[in-house]
């Protein structure tokens, strides 16, 4: 199953929960997640199951004006 994480293509051998994929990617707290441009709250990270072609965004604090 092909997905993208922060624009990077990733191949999964089987369907996996969002949290597992994000941890395997090396995400460090604090972060917030979106899948296909939709916010996924922290309470759903474990239960959220990914599908073929899903695009995950892992966002963290940066400087802003």
């Amino acid at each position: 199953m092909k997905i993208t994480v922060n624009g990077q293509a990733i191949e999964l051998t089987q369907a996996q929960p969002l949290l597992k994929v994000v941890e395997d990617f090396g995400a460090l707290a604090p972060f917030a997640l979106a899948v296909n441009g939709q916010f996924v709250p922290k309470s759903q990270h474990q239960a959220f199951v990914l599908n073929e072609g899903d695009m995950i965004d892992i966002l963290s604090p940066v400087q802003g004006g």
Partner: protein
Amino acid sequence: MQNQADKWNVYGTELSSRLLIGSALYPSPAIMQESIRQSDAEIVTVSLRRQSPEQAGGQAFWQQIQSLGKKILPNTAGCHSISEAVTLAQMSREIFETDWIKLELVGDEYNLQPDPIDLVKATEILLNDGFKVLPYCTDDLVICRHLVELGCEVLMPWGSPIGTGKGLLNPYALSAIRHRFPNISLVVDAGIGLPSHATQALELGYDAVLLNSAIAQAQDPVLMARAFKAAIEAGRQGYLAGRMPEKDTANPSTPTLGMPFWHQL
């Protein structure tokens, strides 16, 4: 000395400092921290971007900001659509644990002007979702009225386009917004380049200014932060003092009665 009772508020949160400061574009993290401290700002703006594992996920930056003990105002900078802005706002609320959002929605790449139509639509969605929206808007009175009618308690019209440092290009329009909405907290956001620009905004009766580049990109950001603090206090006191009536004709201030050599030549 600043009058401690002279406060303004953001959705009920009372504030003494009338400067909101950005956290971007400083020469170094240490200069950023010291500039923010010297500015006396109580609110610091931040953003969210894709995490970079090479930079430890931005943890260092976040710790630097947290160590300052300021209130956090996340922005939606760079968003070009309502859905992008709404998603980024929701993600910001979770990470930063605040329902404040500086709503930015770019309408044109040339001048980074806020999209007035989509800004109003996104504001409505976010207010209904429980956010306290601080919309970065143009100085269009009618757009501001729509935002107020939706429930915005703070408006942040631009002085001039982001990062230009040109100051207040249309003081008349900004003044009209002030007169039209006497009970709304007004912040000039974007375009401030000099301390005197901030003074002018406060003299117009604006409650505060939000700026970043003017301090971060000064040759000495820490000194400029102190300059802005003083300029903002001067502008506020000038506003409270009430300006003299403006006239079109000259009037001497020194008495003319008793003038020697009066028209003797």
